[in-house]
């Protein structure tokens, strides 16, 4: 269908590329390793940034739940920060870390950290109180009650937040790589745009979508599915 629309010749090929052209471009990109290098660089950044935000987001969420004062003061702030597009952090990141790897990773981390901590917070707050009552009468207190009841009970919501965080991390990465001096998918995307090479732009878009699908299917999908299985949520 895509090819068909292209063949009608309604738009010139520098505005609307053909799938064949995109495909050839991608093959070329993979053959000269430029796509592979870019993907690897991007994956490295997103994984690093995401790991940081995972650690920070989870601990921030747990910390806020544990302390009522923090909950009252920080929760609205978090909500506000979550609505802030990650590209807004770019100028600050440049000032703090300079143009380069660190600032990109910072933007990725900050772009996804709030949705993860909000989900952790929400998940834990919505744990049915009866579970905690059971845990208390069974003698579970403090840290033990947390790890054995609160976190497992909140896990489905936390996973959803992590998934959301992952997609936010990608968006942030694209924003961040606008300042990349040498590599990454965002860099190739910008390069393609500057050279009016729509084949390359769409090729990068397709790669990003495919990576997203793969990660969702093999990482989050698996985890989510096994949780749904356990909780009996797959039975309609």
């Amino acid at each position, binding site marked *: 269908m895509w090819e068909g629309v292209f063949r009608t010749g309604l738009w010139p090929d520098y505005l609307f590329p053909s799938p064949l052209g995109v495909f050839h471009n991608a093959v070329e990109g993979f053959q000269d390793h430029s796509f592979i290098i870019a993907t690897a660089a991007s994956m490295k950044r997103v994984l690093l940034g995401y790991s940081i935000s995972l650690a920070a987001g989870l601990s921030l969420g747990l910390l806020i739940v544990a302390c009522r004062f923090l909950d009252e003061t920080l929760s609205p702030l978090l909500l506000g920060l979550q609505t802030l597009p990650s590209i807004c952090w770019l100028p600050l990141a440049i000032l703090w870390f300079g143009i380069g790897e660190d600032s990109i990773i910072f933007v990725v981390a900050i772009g996804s950290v709030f949705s993860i901590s909000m989900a952790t917070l929400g998940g834990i707050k919505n744990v049915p109180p*009866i*579970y905690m*009552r*059971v*845990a*208390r*009468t*069974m*003698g*579970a207190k403090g840290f*033990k009650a947390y790890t*054995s*009841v609160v976190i*497992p*009970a909140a*896990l489905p919501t936390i996973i959803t937040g992590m998934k959301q965080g992952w997609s936010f991390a990608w968006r942030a990465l694209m924003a961040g790589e606008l300042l990349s001096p040498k590599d990454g998918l965002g860099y190739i995307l910008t390069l393609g745009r500057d050279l009016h090479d729509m084949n390359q732009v769409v090729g990068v878009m397709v790669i990003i979508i495919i990576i997203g699908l793969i990660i969702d299917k093999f990482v989050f999908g698996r985890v989510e599915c096994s*949780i749904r*299985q*356990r*909780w*009996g949520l797959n*039975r309609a």
Partner: protein
Amino acid sequence: MLKLKGAGKIFSTPSGNTKALENVNLTVARGEFVSLVGPSGCGKTTVLNIIAGLEQASSGKVYKEGREIMGAGPDRIVMFQEPALFPWLKVVDNVEYGMKIAGVPKKERREKAMHYLKMVHLTRFASHFIHELSGGMRQRVALSRALAMDSDILLMDEPFAALDSQTRSILHTELQQIWCATKKTIIFVTHNVEEAVLLTDRVIVMAANPGRVKKEYRVYLARPRETEHAGLVRIVNQIMKELKEEVEKVARSEYDSGWTLKKSTFLLSPDSNVGGSI
């Protein structure tokens, strides 16, 4: 021995304070099987929660073996109206949960869990997930989880209220057997008088507004008991009469005094001619 001394409870809400309990005195001997019955809202569950340590009494004190109870603990296990099993754990892991917290070695707790699952006839389902069980089975798992803690006091808060009558009667028999075998102290909250008389040795009738102990009945009947037993029916009727007054009082206060219990002794239905054809 468990002792409640002048226990009172006041719930404060934005619209004012509610006196849920007033001066409740109660002594339960070791190994006794006691039930609390009363109209809804008379504070039965609150008494249980105070004993469990899940709620703090506003006044008065609770002692166990002469020591004051502060907070919840694994020596007083509660079985709730809903099974409250953890959906992320398998059946056997649910039963093991308390022992795991207590630091019992893995092999020992698995053996014990299987033992208590056997008591409720659920060993076949040990590695199932909770959602794969029926409501009655879940409640049985909850029972074996409570028993597995080997606490000397078991507190049961209307544990069979949500079950169908067949399952309930099976569990009644099982619970009687388990009590005879383990000799635990059991405090059983219910609104079902028949259930209370069937299971327990002492039935404590509570009154509402504010919640307090009204009367006590001892049940001297051999076990296993059956609901059709004439002696049991007689005691049930006695308690029912006592309760009726209370229930009526609660209903009157809830329905703004526009409510009375009909005094008629047989049902007058328009299409019945009451033996007119004789």
